[in-house]
């Protein structure tokens, strides 16, 4: 069985189901929504749906890949990029994924990898957390938190952003930041400590 891509930014059940989709060769996205509903309702009868072999080409597979990981990648990129750069970075990342699809489709943590690609394409891999510009129509909802995040080291702010704001695992975050999961954990731990101190948030919050 060939491991293909897995999802980010998905609820755990959805993630598992989409993994099963790919692993079992079930690639009908429209049917997928039905499957998700079916699982949520405690039934799996929709799993009996035949998959549309005619749509199983790489184009279609890539479309599903984009559809699945785009929300998580977009969310992750909003931490350390200017607001106006996020869309460009997303486009660059997916263009890269398309150009290297044969390789990307087999990655264990493709979202983390593409996060790194996007950062590289816009050449700000070492930048710290960015407050969004004041000319934004909708200012940040957590100005104090944004200020505290901006006070962290780039590595700490990226790690805590991906793990706690975006729900990534340590392994996924490690892939994105090119560091070991244990180093991610260390950065996250320190970042949370600093943030709690800065914001006066109790540990059990």
């Amino acid at each position, binding site marked *: 069985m060939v491991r293909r891509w897995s999802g980010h930014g998905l609820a755990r059940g959805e993630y598992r189901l989409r993994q099963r989709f790919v692993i079992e060769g079930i690639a009908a996205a429209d049917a997928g929504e039905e499957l998700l509903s079916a699982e949520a309702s405690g039934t799996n009868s929709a799993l009996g749906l035949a998959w549309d072999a005619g749509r199983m080409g790489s184009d279609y597979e890539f479309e599903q890949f984009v559809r699945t990981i785009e*929300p998580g990648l*977009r969310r992750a990129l909003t931490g350390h990029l200017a607001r106006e750069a996020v869309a460009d970075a997303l*486009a660059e990342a997916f263009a890269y994924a398309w150009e290297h699809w044969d390789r990307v489709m087999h990655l264990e943590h493709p979202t983390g990898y593409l996060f790194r690609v996007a950062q590289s394409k816009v050449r700000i891999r070492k930048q710290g957390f960015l407050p969004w510009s004041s000319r934004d129509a909708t200012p*940040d909802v957590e100005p104090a938190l944004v200020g505290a995040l901006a006070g962290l080291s780039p590595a700490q702010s990226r790690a805590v952003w991906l793990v706690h*704001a975006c729900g990534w695992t340590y*392994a996924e975050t490690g892939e994105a930041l090119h560091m070991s999961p*244990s180093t991610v954990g260390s950065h996250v*731990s320190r970042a949370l400590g600093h943030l709690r101190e800065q914001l006066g948030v109790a540990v059990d919050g």
Partner: protein
Amino acid sequence: MGELEDRLERLAEHRAAQIPAFSMPPTDELAVRRGVMRRHRLVVAIAACVAFALVIGGLLIFAHDSHGPTVETPAGTLPSTTDGGCTGKAYVNNSAHGTLSVLDTTTGAVTATIPVGQPEVGGQNGPFISPDGKQLYVTHNLDGTATVISTATDSVVATIPLGKEPFSITFSPDSSRAYVTHGDEGTLTVISTATGQVAATLRVGESRRVPQPNPIPSTMTPDGKHLYINNTDGTLSVITTGTGAASATIHVGTGPGDIAFTPDGKDAYVANQTDGTVSVITTATVAVSATIPVGHGPLGIAFTPDGKYAYVTNNTDGTVSVITTATHAVSAPIAVGTQPVGVTITSDGKYAYVANNIDDTVSIITTATGAVSTPIPVGSRPRGIAVCPEPIANQPR
């Protein structure tokens, strides 16, 4: 989930909602783009081949005038060491200093500093002391080597090239083999400690990133039959040391750190850094039998020699929790330095040594009273710490 984590999520959701979702261009446009890129890559590949040939030619000319490799590679057997050279010492990995500090466990004083790595390179893990106390290893995951130190002389006796990302080392009970986990895809390197040569390379798992980088991600069961590897994704893999085959996967908490076995080998304790808990694994059933809440960011674990207590460093809190193994009761936290990482207990069980990563110090806890010493300055960013094992002749049978 705490308030802070909720606020982070809210901020991310708010930001993401302001960015329009990426829309897929028609796939025929993508196909055209991919065709163009392939032609570009062909041109780049040809240019790279030419450049590669030029570089190799230059290196051959340079090598002709050079004096051999810079990495010391052991040949034959390593210099012999004597029993007892290790007794009464503790070693601290100054991870950002490229050194080990040697502490006298009788006086608590730093008696020597051993250069073992390059501080500008980093990635220094350990120390890993063989059960017979004769050798001490430090791995360097960024340059792919291990440094071997004779504990009798506190000097470097070999540097072993190990390949990609060597992290932790654990030893067979007779000290004849050192097992090295790597941060690459599922390899385990076995070193003969007598020669310093690689005796075998085992595949552990199939195309999985099994051994993930962690200062101490793997630990040998006291009987030497199995290796518990921390996958750092909330699971441990149990590997049969003879074959490298994975015999079980154990789900523990989130962000697992150290793994330590009780001296009788019946239980393994795992510090779950993110959850603030310790998972207790019954080794007979290879299943989690209890989860014990401790402080925030638990990372290091060490048992007293009688197995009655486990000392756990709470990295976030700057404290140590003591678990009574019979009841799983947890003591009031003992304040040490900032962001403690490694903990180790002297062979007489009287003292626990704790490496305070941010303070560049070591705290000594008197186990009978919980009293904490004045911090002892060591090198920069101490992480791992280990005391020498009791000489075999003096160990309880």
